[in-house]
């Protein structure tokens, strides 16, 4: 038992810190710290900085231009990025599609798509969810009908994150309507410039445009854009979902959020003293910090086991639940700390310019973030689904 990083791990951390000190643009880290959107340009700029260093694909093998870091290194990198308020890596091409193509794609697909993910030429988005199939993915209804050497796609996807920036989409489509739920599904790569695709914005309850509906009307996709075998898409989808689960605990986000709440609570005055000294607020803050300290160790335990080659089991479902509860609790504390300043809807603050705002620093985005992050326990496999999984695995033999 040793809770400390090894000398090699500490050296790696120092390397990451130095890189972030030197290369992370302050306009981007300011925006992230203040909860503002960095837009398409910001994401692309940060990706290209990472790519220049060779650090854009921590989980890819070296052969494809990745870092081949182990779980502990990836954790250190993510932790330091959060601490430095670096933008998150947009995951659709890098974390989700990349590993699927590496494992199940054809040589041609790998050669064509992987470099373009790294270069930023392709911005991918995800076509999984459908209206009427939220956590119940297997019930999807978007149809792909073979017509010569094309599939013809009709249907609708939803909750497509940052689809407004994307030029490619990977989709689950039903290729065999008679098969049972999870069978008869295929995994297709679709150029979003193809005629018949329409992207419609979904405005979220905090006023942001993060997600979209994507409508397909007689969209023709060449058969060579099928990944793996027809009707085997569910296998690839499950593989993708497993990979999506890295950093599922969100420890770094929570840590950065907690630091922000502490700053705010030291600034906000309550009866002439900093709010941080109020025993009730201090108790709420301490309690979530204690929960986070424990979860960070749970996270490290799983990462350490993963680095030693063990496959994560039901623990990732536990981390998803506890991790989102903690992040949401921190968002709740931030809105409490802001007092009456949680009320204004400073939508301009989210998009960049807050020069004409009269709000104290750090209060402009607290309500929007509180509401926006209610999604954490809904998307990515709702917390109810995670609990079903935990109970099934742990009680499985018995019930």
């Amino acid at each position, binding site marked *: 038992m040793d809770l400390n990083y090894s000398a090699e791990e500490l050296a790696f951390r120092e390397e990451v810190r130095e890189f972030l000190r030197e290369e992370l643009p302050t306009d981007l880290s300011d925006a992230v710290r203040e909860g503002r959107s960095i837009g398409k340009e910001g994401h692309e700029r940060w990706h290209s900085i990472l790519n220049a260093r060779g650090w854009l694909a921590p989980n890819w093998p070296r052969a494809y231009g990745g870092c081949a870091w182990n779980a502990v290194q990836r954790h250190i990198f993510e932790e330091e990025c959060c601490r430095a308020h670096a933008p998150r890596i947009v995951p659709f091409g890098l974390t989700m599609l990349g590993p699927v193509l590496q494992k199940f794609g054809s040589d041609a697909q790998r050669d064509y798509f992987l470099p373009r993910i790294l270069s930023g030429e392709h911005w991918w988005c995800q076509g999984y*969810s459908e209206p*009427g*199939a*939220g*956590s*119940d993915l297997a*019930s999807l209804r978007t149809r792909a009908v073979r017509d010569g050497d094309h599939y013809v796609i009709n249907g609708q996807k*939803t*909750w497509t994150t940052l689809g407004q920036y994307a030029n490619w989409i990977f989709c689950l489509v039903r290729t065999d309507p008679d098969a049972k739920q999870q069978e008869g599904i295929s995994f297709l790569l679709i150029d979003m410039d193809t005629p018949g695709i329409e992207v419609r914005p*979904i*405005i*979220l*309850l*905090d*006023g942001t445009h993060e997600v979209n509906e994507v409508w397909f009307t007689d969209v023709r996709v060449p058969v060579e854009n099928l990944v793996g075998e027809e009707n085997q898409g569910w296998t690839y989808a499950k593989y993708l979902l497993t990979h999506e689960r890295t950093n599922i605990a969100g420890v770094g986000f929570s840590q950065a959020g907690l630091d922000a709440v502490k700053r705010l609570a030291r600034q*906000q*005055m*309550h*009866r*002439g003293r900093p*709010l941080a000294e*109020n025993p*009730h*607020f201090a108790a*709420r803050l301490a309690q979530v910090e204690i929960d986070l300290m424990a979860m960070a160790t749970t996270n490290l335990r799983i990462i350490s086991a993963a680095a030693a080659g063990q496959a994560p089991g039901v623990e990732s479902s536990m981390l998803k639940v506890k991790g989102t509860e903690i992040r949401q609790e921190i968002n*709740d504390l931030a*809105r*409490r700390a*802001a*007092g*009456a*300043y*949680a*009320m*204004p*809807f*400073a*939508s301009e603050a989210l998009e960049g310019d807050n020069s*004409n*705002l*009269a*709000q*104290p620093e750090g209060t402009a985005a607290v*309500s*929007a973030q*509180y*509401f*926006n992050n*209610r*999604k954490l*326990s*809904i*998307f990515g496999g*709702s*917390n*109810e689904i995670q*609990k079903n999984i935990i109970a099934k695995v742990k009680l499985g033999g018995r019930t």
Partner: protein
Amino acid sequence: MNFQLSEERQMMQDSLRRFLADRYSAAQRDESVSNAIGFAPQIWAQLADLGILGALLPEDVGGYGGKGFDLSTVFEELGRAGVVEPVLDTAVLCGTLLASDPQGKGAALIEGLIAGNVQLAFAHGEVNSRYERLWVETRASAYGDDIVLIGRKSVVVNAAGADHLIVSARESGDTDDREGLSLFLVDTKAEGLQMRSSALMAGGCAAEIDFDNLRIPSSARIGPAGGASEMIEAALAAAEVALAAETLGAMETATQLTMDYLGTRQQFGRPIGSFQALQHRVADMLIELEQARSAVINAAGHLEEQPAVRDRHIAAARNLIARAGRKIAEEAIQLHGGIAMTAEYELAHFAKRIILAEHRFGDADTQLERFIDLSAA
């Protein structure tokens, strides 16, 4: 002991509910929200015509109500319909302040208010006051026969649409003294007043207001010089009863939307309301809703009591509703899933009303501290 509404209040409730069901559609609400002043003037006029504004004020100033249960009856309905019009600010907060002026200076304004022709805002909170009721740094200094105001007011709800502000300012004493506070009626277009308005997350508007040597005649003072603390506390008490009831109404709608959704939304081949884990969570929501209803009754029923008793029940109600409201809003979103995250679906509006209500006049912890202090006293 009697928990029935009086016949008059029952009629008022019925007619208000009918009016809002007919006229206050989601489209109307969106129109109200997107207006630069944060509400729709024609809805305001109709509320006045219905007699809703008068029902919130006592008879001796021309109203026909003003008791705790009048407030709770009206605001529960406004909350159920998700109304964003500034009834609380103009009629309850400012109306109560004007009505309690012993000299009756506000009589003409109240008349206009009840008729729907006047909009008001109470400029009271400040950057450092947080939720303290008498923490006022803004100064009012005599300058001959005039008064000069210097200071800044924060998150003044309804300022952008208001004709006048009622401004609290200190004529003497330290920042949090009971003594030394006065109230002044100020035209929002007065010179020396700078206003930066912003939309509110849950609808309506609020402004940061700077008073830069704003000069008003001393006749603008409402109530006793340096002795406005009790007026302020009484008006805040009425506003808190109204806000608690409004939040209760929004909680009812959020719960109802959730139950409707669970009955229609299919997943894994059956309505999601047939899943026991979700059923038990709905049961918990319904239990909390009954608790909130009782808390509002307790607060409304003690509004006419002496201040310490009044405020203890109000603090209790507001603390309970902050907790129950958070639970219901968050559970309603979670049980809906993705659709609840969209601005388009009605639940979003109700969740915001519920959560952000906690940020007016004191959050759960502040109310708990007040309750503890008032219980010890």
